[in-house]
């Protein structure tokens, strides 16, 4: 990994079979990120069989095989470098139950490439992933209209799909001004690293150019400190040590901090990261620290640590926008599933369903509906059954999204619109 260029987490999203894996392989291939031995192995085999050329399909097969065996490479983590950035790929599994991991996991994406097949257009998972991208706070979408080879590189087909995608983006209020559409074929390599002769009607950037043009993600250092507590330890000779990953702001020794909703606080004495004492830690850092006067039973997993003079919000109720992904029947007021937000898992009652949003127009379809079901988007008011620290997504997006689980399934995902504090 390159140390001297900025880093981004890049999500590859889109409907199953629209070519996400092929695009990932193509990006690795075009940026020279395919492991050396895979290329060497191909050269040897090609020479033996007396056929030249470097076949992308071969590399794809062998990458898949490498990953299946998965002995030497970090298979949950793939990266490539462009001129401007080091990208880590966040490749979204198709199954809905992985959505919880995408919301509470460490590798939240900064930007995303949405893959839409030119021969299929907007499909159910396209819709779901775009809403998730919005919920997860993804800033910019690059849209690859893929499989252009299958529609004979037709500009008309390309434009039709653009219209469908634009409608979808408008529905979830993604600013379409910032969106880049690119006609590509991940399999053939059109418009990925070099402008394709097959699409002479297109004069926009290639995919790699568009990735280079992304704005540099700014770590949320200027936001107030928010550090969800993962675990609390008693370490001999040190005392109570909470452990967690800083989501926003900075943690410094000498800071006066507050833990919510446990509502205790004190002065930060020491901070350690990778077993070394540090004076200060920033977003993304996994830290253990020690706070004067805090005992092991005073704080717990799910607490959020923040500045004493700008403490984390604790919700009496909160209003949120949710999308129901799967539910066997209908959701009505009074429903009490478990909400997963940062490190907290708290049963929350959906106190009222305030508005149902029409997915085809994005407008309010119904005020105070009796129920919502799979596929519906809605604004709801939620009452946690135990104290929960959570923030409006517009203020601190890192602490403003959640997954709703029930019956062993992720049934919905959402973001917090406003918090009515205790």
């Amino acid at each position, binding site marked *: 990994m390159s140390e001297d260029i900025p880093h981004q987490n890049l999500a590859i999203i889109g409907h199953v079979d629209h070519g996400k894996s092929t695009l990932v392989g193509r990006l690795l291939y075009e940026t020279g990120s395919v492991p050396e031995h895979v290329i060497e192995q191909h050269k040897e085999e090609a020479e033996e069989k007396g056929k030249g050329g470097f076949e992308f399909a071969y590399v794809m097969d062998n990458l898949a095989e490498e990953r299946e065996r998965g002995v030497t490479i970090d298979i949950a983590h793939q990266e490539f470098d462009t001129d401007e950035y080091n990208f880590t790929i966040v490749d979204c599994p*198709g199954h809905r139950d992985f959505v919880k991991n995408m919301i509470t996991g460490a590798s939240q994406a900064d930007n995303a490439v949405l893959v839409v097949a030119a021969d299929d257009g907007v499909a159910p998972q396209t819709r779901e992933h775009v809403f998730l991208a919005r919920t997860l706070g993804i800033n910019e979408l690059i849209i690859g209209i893929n499989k252009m080879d299958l529609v004979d590189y037709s500009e008309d087909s390309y434009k039709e799909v653009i219209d469908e995608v634009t409608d979808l983006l408008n529905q979830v209020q993604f600013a379409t001004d910032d969106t880049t559409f690119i006609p590509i074929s991940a399999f053939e390599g059109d418009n990925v690293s070099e402008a394709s002769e097959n699409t002479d009607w297109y004069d926009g950037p290639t995919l790699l150019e568009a990735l280079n043009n992304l704005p540099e993600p700014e770590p949320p250092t200027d936001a107030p400190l928010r550090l969800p507590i993962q675990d609390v330890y008693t370490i001999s000779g*040190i005392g109570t040590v909470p452990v967690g990953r800083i989501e926003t702001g900075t943690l410094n020794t000498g800071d006066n901090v507050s833990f919510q909703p446990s509502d205790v606080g004190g002065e930060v004495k020491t901070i350690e990261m990778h077993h070394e004492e540090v004076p200060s830690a920033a977003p993304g850092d996994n830290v253990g620290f020690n706070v004067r006067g805090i005992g092991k039973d005073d704080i717990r997993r799910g607490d959020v640590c923040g500045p004493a003079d700008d403490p984390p919000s604790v919700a009496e109720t909160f209003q949120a926008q949710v999308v129901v992904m799967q539910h066997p029947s209908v959701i009505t007021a009074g429903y009490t599933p478990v909400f997963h937000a940062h490190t907290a898992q708290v049963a929350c009652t959906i106190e009222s369903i305030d508005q149902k949003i029409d997915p085809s127009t994005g407008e309010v379809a119904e005020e105070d509906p009796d129920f919502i079901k799979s596929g519906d988007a809605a604004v709801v008011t939620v009452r946690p059954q135990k104290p929960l620290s959570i923030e409006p997504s517009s203020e601190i997006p890192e602490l403003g999204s959640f997954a709703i689980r029930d019956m062993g399934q992720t049934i919905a995902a959402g973001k917090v619109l406003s918090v009515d504090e205790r």
Partner: protein
Amino acid sequence: MGDVAAKIKVMPESPDVDLDALEDRLEAALPEGAEIRGYQREDVAFGLVALLPTVIVPDDAGGTEAVEEAFSDVEGVESIDVDSVGRL
């Protein structure tokens, strides 16, 4: 649908937990269909070391929940978090 690789962060109950023995216990606790493909270790703070097994689960198996639950019950485990997921 293919398989999914999930890197799972296992925090031990204390710095004194023997991580080699813990690896064996995690292996034994795996639900059917899941498989561990190697471990990483990460120094955290004050002697605490996180164990990060990469677990392969089928994409249609309903996520990492079964693995998380199984690991949570293993002796010496303080907490389980999914660090990252990627498709194979």
